[in-house]
């Protein structure tokens, strides 16, 4: 080939070796083509591209390799270059092997020994073009996906919306993306949620990453609210961080959840109705019966007076009986009143009314409501924390949660053996939360279905027994108040469901400020409770009136009594404690410090062994059942303290 080259300029010829190396080693194909299209020269890359030898190349015409569709293009390429216009063209070439490549040709005219020759450098751009096409497609696809996505997407750049998809445009009741772009996102958020959202955006920009899902309300063009669930991430866009928010319109889902809550409530009312009727009819029976008795007794007294003329001992005895019967009637009436009150709170229509709630009372009301269903199967043990802070929620809805958990617990237990079947209900507080725990001794939940139990319509109960909505509704209700529902379960041993709820801070502060000013410190009171939170609460309350000593066990208490001998006016003690329980403490105190045992006041969770039950019957000491009214506790303690101080004064004086 080199030999066939026509003679060249002298200075150029000097560097023929360089030229050869340059052309042969070049990465691109280099061709010299005569004006009629016949090849003069091709470098190593050129012949490799076309798949022929150098010897073959010079016998062939350029146009033979061009695809027929590009012949015109090739002809014009040659024509233009020969007219002296350098040219860049992309031409499809079919190689000797039949492969087709897209080649980018950069062509110029050179003159060698008076002969005009086309020199062109060909670059195979097939792969690049294909990649570009793929990229273009995928970008278009991505844009299409984002534009048509059912979830709304907004990009916020420096406080302004820079991108919006069709879904968010529809959600907001607008007609075009342009109505959103350039505006502040806060123009489309309901005023009460603006602070919340702006705090989230600020945090995201500061800390990066992503914000978890929240629910808030957007404001449509027509002013109507739209419920959305939104999460946002910080992404790089044109080299700077922007906030990308993904929003799902959950208005419909909210409506469905609301419906599910109602359905569950109806199902629960169905389950409870029979029980409630029984619970009302029971006291009603003895109310009516006692009224009959009283009626008879009035007749008896009347007859007696007519016969004897004097209101004698017989009449007095009958009156005393009547008084007892009236007391029973009152109890029955109160019982009915409480049941109706519970039912009213449960079914009341004002579902969204949020009030300040006493957790213990709400749990108690739920127990009353479901007692008839539960009591057949199991005994209930209560361990309520003293002086729990209040929380903000709808009491009916919380009752619904608790009743569901109680019914579930009782259904999880087989048979009616109340010695074996037990539901322990515990309330308490930690950090800024209060909790209530329902622990059953039922069959437990298999691990493989544990993650599904909060799913709507998931049920393991036979058809007609459960709706499968209960736990999912409980979960929803609690989530609404920022609470959580947790479950722990051991197969064959039982399950524990724990409801966690936020304390109503505002109310707690108000309550703290409304405490009456402390009177002068009067006596010394020892408080004994194995539950630290209860001990704390009792001490905190009593401190305002007396000097308070505290013990976490009966043994601790004995130690303190020995140390403070003669300087303790009253002892407030839990009954159920490990090691030394309240009864043992009483006996120990009676043995070592006779007289002091009379100044013990007991607190109980409401349930105790037969032994303790019998023991309590034999002693005159006050026994307060949790949850109790603190004022009542204070007065009883004050009474004991006063009595003790009076005796001391008496002794001192004597």
């Amino acid at each position: 080939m080199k030999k066939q080259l026509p003679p060249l300029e002298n200075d150029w010829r000097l560097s023929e070796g360089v030229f050869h190396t340059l052309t042969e080693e070049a990465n691109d194909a280099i061709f010299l083509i005569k004006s009629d299209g016949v090849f003069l020269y091709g470098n190593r890359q050129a012949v490799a591209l076309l798949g022929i030898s150098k010897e073959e190349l010079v016998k062939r015409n350029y146009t033979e390799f061009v695809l027929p569709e590009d012949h015109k293009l090739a002809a014009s390429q040659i024509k233009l270059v020969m007219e002296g216009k350098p040219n860049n063209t992309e031409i499809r070439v079919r190689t000797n092997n039949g492969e087709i490549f897209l080649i980018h040709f950069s062509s110029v005219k050179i003159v060698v020994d008076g002969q005009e020759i086309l020199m062109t450098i060909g670059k195979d751009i097939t792969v690049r073009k294909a990649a570009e096409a793929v990229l273009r497609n995928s970008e278009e696809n991505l844009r299409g996906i984002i534009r048509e996505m059912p979830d709304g997407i907004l990009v916020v750049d420096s406080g302004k919306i820079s991108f919006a998809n069709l879904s968010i445009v529809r959600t907001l009741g607008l007609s075009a993306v342009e109505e959103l772009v350039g505006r502040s996102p806060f123009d489309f958020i309901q005023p009460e949620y603006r602070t919340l959202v702006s705090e989230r955006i600020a945090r995201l920009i500061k800390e990066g990453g992503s914000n978890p899902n929240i629910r808030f309300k957007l404001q449509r063009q027509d002013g109507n609210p739209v419920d959305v669930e939104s999460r946002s991430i910080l992404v790089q866009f044109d080299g700077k961080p922007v906030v990308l928010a993904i929003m799902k319109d959950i208005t419909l889902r909210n409506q469905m959840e609301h419906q599910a809550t109602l359905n569950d409530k109806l199902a629960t009312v169905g389950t409870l109705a029979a029980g409630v009727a029984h619970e009302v009819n029971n006291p009603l029976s003895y109310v009516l019966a006692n009224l009959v008795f009283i009626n008879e007794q009035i007749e008896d007294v009347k007859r007696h007076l007519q016969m004897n003329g004097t209101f004698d001992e017989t009449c007095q005895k009958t009156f005393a009986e009547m008084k007892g019967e009236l007391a029973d009637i009152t109890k029955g009436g109160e019982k009915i009143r409480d049941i109706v009150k519970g039912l009213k709170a449960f079914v009341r229509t004002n579902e969204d009314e949020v009030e300040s709630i006493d957790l213990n009372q709400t749990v108690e009301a739920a127990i009353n409501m479901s007692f008839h269903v539960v009591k057949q199967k199991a005994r209930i043990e209560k361990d309520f924390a003293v002086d729990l802070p209040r929380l903000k929620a709808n009491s009916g809805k919380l009752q619904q949660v608790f009743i569901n958990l109680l019914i579930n617990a009782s259904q999880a237990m087989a048979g009616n053996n109340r010695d074996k079947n037990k539901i322990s209900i515990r309330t308490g507080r930690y950090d800024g939360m209060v909790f209530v725990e329902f622990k059953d001794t039922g069959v437990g939940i298999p691990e493989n279905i544990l993650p599904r139990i909060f799913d709507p319509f998931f049920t393991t109960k036979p058809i007609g027994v459960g709706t499968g909505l209960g736990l999912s509704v409980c979960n929803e209700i609690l989530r609404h108040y920022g609470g959580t529902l947790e479950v722990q379960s051991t197969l064959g041993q039982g399950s524990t469901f724990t409801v966690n709820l936020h304390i109503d801070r505002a109310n707690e502060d108000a309550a703290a400020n409304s405490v009456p000013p402390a009177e002068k410190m009067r006596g010394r009171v020892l408080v004994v409770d194995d539950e630290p939170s209860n001990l704390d609460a009792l001490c905190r309350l009593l401190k305002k009136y007396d000097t308070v000593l505290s013990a976490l066990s009966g043994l601790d208490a004995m130690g303190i009594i020995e140390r403070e001998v003669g300087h303790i006016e009253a002892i407030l003690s839990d009954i159920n404690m490990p090691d030394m329980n309240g009864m043992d403490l009483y006996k120990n105190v009676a043995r070592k410090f006779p007289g002091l045992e009379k100044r013990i006041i007991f607190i109980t969770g409401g349930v105790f062994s037969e032994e303790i039950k019998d023991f309590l019957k034999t002693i005159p000491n006050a026994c307060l059942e949790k949850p109790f009214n603190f004022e009542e506790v204070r007065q009883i303690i004050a009474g004991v303290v006063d009595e003790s101080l009076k005796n001391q004064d008496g002794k001192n004086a004597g």
Partner: protein
Amino acid sequence: MKCSDFTIMFAEDDPLSQKVYERAFVKDGYKVVMVEHGARALAELREQKVDLLVTDLQMPGMNTLELFPILKNDYPRLPVIVVTGHYGNLMEDFKAKGFDIKAIFNKPLVVSELKEKIKKILKIDDMDEPKK
């Protein structure tokens, strides 16, 4: 036969209802045995002669439905009256299970009606009653 010849057992877990039974039937002269649930009822039945059982349908411990098969087997001639707060066709359910129940009383209970029924079952003639 008169009231004082008979012993009636009441199975009832509610203390105030117990009081009502006691008050109403002791006054009439019956011997009254009060039990809290089915298991105690069986224990007392082994101890003493009982002429009629009035039982609440649902009680903690052992309820009536668990008690009946044992009664049917061990005390087939003991007349039983059921008191319940539940409505529905209980009598048919009992018959289907082969339990012979003399009567079902719904709550709220009218004591005088219960008294009448018991007298009929025990064949007590009011004329034999001692004057008050």
